[in-house]
């Protein structure tokens, strides 16, 4: 299984043959719309960053199909342990662009209370979309531990842990996959091999023949899939989820794709990404491919794209305006959530901060009194 070539389902012309995705028409359209909404969200964020409204974002271009395909294989009772590019998965399961925008602005309504850089989302509902950490790979063993909790309680939920090609070199990859193998934990490991870890090409990340093969070091199946083919990703991840749910243990999925933008808004990829590669992958856009598939199925007609884009733009643009108008988190958020209960030394530090803010004339930042 590990050494097989990457699975594709949708051909270049959109033909998926007799493939049964298990999705009805409405669901297929939901997938399509989510891809477009993901792209629009990304575009708006990049604009917000360029105009200085937000500090930071990470381009998502080209991996919308991967994210939506993987997300579509999960139930809302499953948990997602995402990487910082995975907000398409959140959108698929009903997290609202507004909630996401609160995070992008780090405002008072951000679930992370403005403590994290933007794109480091945390949601509990409508699906557990686990709080994103910057240190690469640390969330992988968390997914395994959470999965073990499901095992212990006899629940058949599954954890999806997503990370990049660079993430496979991290400590968490090694310990997470090893523990999962020994425990037969219900986890699907999704390696998004987009060719680059910032400026390090996959070929310098590891000497192994791709990433799926690393599964063998942990006694689990490893599968390669065409990451720009939504249905192929859905197929492979669904199989892995089914295995996990049935108690048959974890799987490592390698989705082959390409990072079409810079690493982040702070990065200039023209310094190191060869133009030919970009061009070649540009022809494999997952949204166009899925459109062709929908055409073949008679589910898409000229203008759909524009319509969905416009609706998405209206919604997300409005969300960004609303979130941008929201105030900063209160001063007390510097001190709360360090522990469940505020310890004395933090109360003292907090009071001094409120006092100083008052003297500086910034008391409005909080209620004017230290509330904790």
């Amino acid at each position, binding site marked *: 299984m590990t050494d097989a070539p990457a699975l594709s389902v949708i051909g270049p012309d959109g033909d998926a043959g007799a493939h049964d995705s298990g999705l009805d028409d409405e669901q297929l359209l939901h997938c399509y719309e989510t891809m477009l909404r993901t792209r629009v969200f990304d575009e708006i964020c990049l604009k917000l960053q360029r105009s200085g409204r937000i500090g930071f974002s990470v381009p998502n271009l080209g991996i919308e199909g991967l994210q939506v395909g993987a997300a579509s294989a999960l139930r809302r009772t499953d*948990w997602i342990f995402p990487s910082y590019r995975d907000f398409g998965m959140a959108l698929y399961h009903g997290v609202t662009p507004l909630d996401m925008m609160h995070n992008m602005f780090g405002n008072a309504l*951000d*679930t*992370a*209370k403005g*403590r*994290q850089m933007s794109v*480091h989302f*945390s*949601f*509990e509902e409508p699906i557990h979309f*686990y*709080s994103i*950490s910057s*240190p690469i790979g*640390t969330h*992988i*063993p*968390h*997914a*395994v*531990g*959470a*999965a*073990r*909790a*499901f095992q*212990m*309680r006899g629940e058949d939920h599954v954890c999806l842990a997503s990370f990049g090609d660079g993430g496979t070199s991290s*400590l*968490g990859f*090694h*310990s*997470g996959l*090893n*523990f999962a193998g*020994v425990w037969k934990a219900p986890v699907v490991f999704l390696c998004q091999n987009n060719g680059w870890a910032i400026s390090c090409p996959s070929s310098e990340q590891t000497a192994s023949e791709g990433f799926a093969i690393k599964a063998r070091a942990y006694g689990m199946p490893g599968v390669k899939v065409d990451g720009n083919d939504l249905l192929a990703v859905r197929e492979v991840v669904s199989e892995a989820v089914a295995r996990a749910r049935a108690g048959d243990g974890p799987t490592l999925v390698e989705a082959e794709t390409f990072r079409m933008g810079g690493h982040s808004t702070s990065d200039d990829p023209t310094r190191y990404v060869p133009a030919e590669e970009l061009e070649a992958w540009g022809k494999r856009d997952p949204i166009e491919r899925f459109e062709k598939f929908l055409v073949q199925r008679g589910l898409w007609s000229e203008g759909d794209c524009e319509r969905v884009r416009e609706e998405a733009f209206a919604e997300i643009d409005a969300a960004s305006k609303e979130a941008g108008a929201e105030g900063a988190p209160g001063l007390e958020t510097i001190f*709360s*959530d*360090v*522990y*469940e209960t505020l*310890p*004395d*030394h*933090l109360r003292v530090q907090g009071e001094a901060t409120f006092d100083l803010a008052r003297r500086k004339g910034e008391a409005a930042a909080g209620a004017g009194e230290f509330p904790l």
Partner: protein
Amino acid sequence: MATLTIVQAVNDGLKSVMRDDPTVLVLGEDVGPKGGVFLATEGLTDEFGVARCFDTPLSEDGIIGTAVGMAMNGLKPVAEIQFQDFIYPAFDQIVSEAAKLRYRSGGQYTAPMVIRTPYGGGIRGGLYHSQSGEAYFCHTPGLKVVVPSTPHDAKGLLIASILDPDPVLFLEPKALYRSVKGEVPEGSYEVELSTLREVRAGDDVTIFCYGAMVPVVVKAAEQAAEKGIDCHVVDLRTLLPLDEQGVLDAARRTGRVVVVHEAPRFCGYGAEISALIAEHAIEYMEAPVKRVTGFDTPFPNTLEHHYLPDERRVLDAIEQVHSF
């Protein structure tokens, strides 16, 4: 009440809480059938089954990383790190993840878990079986750090740590594991975290200490008493969050302070105690605040008895601050 050693009290504490709460489980290297290299987890797999007390592969990063995942999903993991010296592969998981999870997720995800680990010298373990790394962890907001020095506290603080909603590093003074015995109540009880223990009342010199240094300090205080110096000995018990007010009160009481720990001096835990006093009670001080600590070197083997603070070094310091 049974008379137990510290390691027996730890074992008893684990059993008591596991009987009461089915979500508590124990994981770590060799904690299962072998019962841990110090036998702290002896009998747990037998009584609670392999699902609730199990061996892991040799990866501290994996032990703590998976424990964080269990903790956020309804379990209460008690992870053992075989020697505190081997906790550093898990440093990132502890400092970047367990300690910061509640904060970064705005309280959506939390990591209520305990990391138990034997620390300190006195067993001829050399560089890597003797370290006292508490200061590394006490500089980490979001963590709690607890160090018992008696069997009663070992059990009561451990249970309180397991029931605590935040991640707790529970440092067990291995030098005292079997050398100290004491009465331990049966069943579950808690010793409240962030409270000091007055080991000995006195009005001349205040000594702050914890873990394996407590009996050393007590002996030095007894010798000081023979010389007419009346020492007030405080066992800090919880290093983070510290009862700072209690520390300052005790320091002000005598105006003469000695701080004792095994770890190296430079940027050690004792520095924080000195700094608190220098910031909030300096006007009460009648003598320099002295630290008696391990040296600023790695931990030696053959000469560890010179490295570790002993009664003599503590007594020297007591006399110096007393006669200043």
